[in-house]
């Protein structure tokens, strides 16, 4: 069973994605800040991080840089209301990108795609 870490400060979105992905058979953890997420990530190996960009204090892009530095093969699916182009500009080499307005079906597809792909290095 794949383990997914959702980093999201908008509580309603976090709740919705958590219950949806759990229904799809994933094991899901949730964090509302970047620092909390980093602590969780260090001790719990996860297969995928669903990462919001716009968060208080430390943004998702900064967290991504840190994760990438210490865990080069961590798979990160960027999830934001920014359009994909903007997401790619902010985090250029993530495993995948998801625009929250695309809905949960698209989310599921992206999650599957990223998990099926070979680890990047």
């Amino acid at each position, binding site marked *: 069973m794949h383990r997914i870490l959702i980093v999201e400060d908008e509580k*309603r979105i976090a709740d919705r994605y958590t219950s949806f992905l759990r229904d799809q058979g994933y094991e899901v953890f949730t964090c509302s800040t970047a620092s909390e997420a980093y602590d969780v990530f260090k001790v719990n190996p996860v297969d995928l991080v669903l990462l919001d960009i716009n968060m208080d204090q430390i943004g998702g892009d900064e967290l991504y840089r840190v994760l990438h530095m210490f865990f080069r093969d961590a798979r990160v699916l960027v999830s934001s*209301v*920014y359009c994909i182009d903007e997401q790619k500009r902010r985090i250029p080499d993530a495993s995948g990108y998801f625009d929250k307005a695309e809905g949960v079906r698209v989310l599921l597809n992206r999650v599957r795609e990223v998990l099926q792909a070979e680890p990047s290095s």
Partner: protein
Amino acid sequence: MSMTNSIRFKTSILYTSVLGCILVALSVVNFLSLRSLLFHNLDSALMNDALQVQTMLELFEELDMSHVITFDMFDRAFSSGMREAYAASQYRKIRLLRRWWEEEASHLRLRKRFVSVFDMSRNLLVDMRLNGGPDLEFILRQVDFNKDSVAFETVRFNGEKIRTVNYPFRYKNRFLYVVQLGVSMTPAFVVLNTFLFYALVAVAAILIITLFMGRFIAARVLDPVDQVVSLANSISHQDLSGRLTLGNTDAEMKNLVDSFNTMLDRLQRSFAQIHDFSSHVAHELKTPLAIIKGELEVALMSDRPLDEYKQVMTLCLEEVDRQIRIVDDLLFLARAEYRTDIFHFERVSLKEFVHDVHEQFGMVALEKGHELVLDDRIDRELFVNIDKPHLRRLLFNLLNNAVKYSYKGSKIELSVSSDKSNGFIMVKDSGRGIATEHIGRIFDKFYRVPNVEANESFSCGLGLSIASSIARVHSGSLSVESEPGRGSVFTVSIPLYD
């Protein structure tokens, strides 16, 4: 860029013409002073000659004294015989004078001069033309014969100007002769014309050289302008980070480049602000939509009990409301900045107004477990020119924040004060306060102090921007002082109105 419209061209033309005017004026002054010097010299030379002739005549008169006296006595006598004798003696005298003159004149240096001596009846006694001058008779006929005074005159003869002097000769208080001397002015004119010619040639040459050198110098001086232009062209709106750099350059060009760079700084800042703002707007408006979409999609995936549908719909409605609020706030901000005609100002007693606000918000505060205390002890009646509903909105906003960010049961203070020209309304809470690093940004649009536990969950970060823009519309200001852990004081300042 046409050639005549360039600074280069204008500068060289300008200073060439200034230099030209100076040179022409200088030449004119030189010419005039030279001319007056020459003419003055001519006159004094003539006068000098006249004095020499006078000296000579005096000598002659002294030699011939007895005759003159004798004949004059006879002249005053009556007989015609005597007249004849007088005439004879006059004739003799003239002959003597001429002979004497011819002997003496060669000793005088009267070159190129015409000399004639008349008696008082205008009979020509002696005339001399030296070195083959023009027809003397003709010249002298033009000269005024004046027995009484020395007079200078310029006459024209054969296209030549002759300067003459009329010099009455007096001996022992009697006028005996009139001496007239003339000299050609041609040599003086030759000098003047030569001067004029060389002055014109020199001025023209200097101006032509200046024009070329000026163009060259202007081109050198303006060279950095071309550099600035090409640098400026290389900066596009997509990348405003470029700045102009010029090496060693003059102060003026440095000023230009500096102000250009400062302008770019400002542009870059406001572009960044606009970019930030629109990205915020998109983010804030899209988040409720993302939530609604997720909820609806999941709800429709399978059949669910009615309660669950209701729950989803309630949630969606809240998100729609949230979005409407954001749009309304944004619209209000835009209108407060560009359409101030939505405000309707009236003269209001500050004390009464704050009193009303206290009454209206007191209940709300009580419901949420706070006491709202009013301090309106001001010694005089103060009036302000305000739009009541909007200023009320501002104060409600501040009061709401005070409720949101202070501990339950704590006191919130609303007070009024004033100085000479401004009225102040203060909202003071003893809540969490605002950390120094955030205090400068709390009035920015969409700025939310991170990780603050509010008593109410949702805030879109526009409230204080709106409050601040309402204060600005009232020609006032909104300021804040805060100490983390001790609370904050927000002060609205509004100019007093008589």
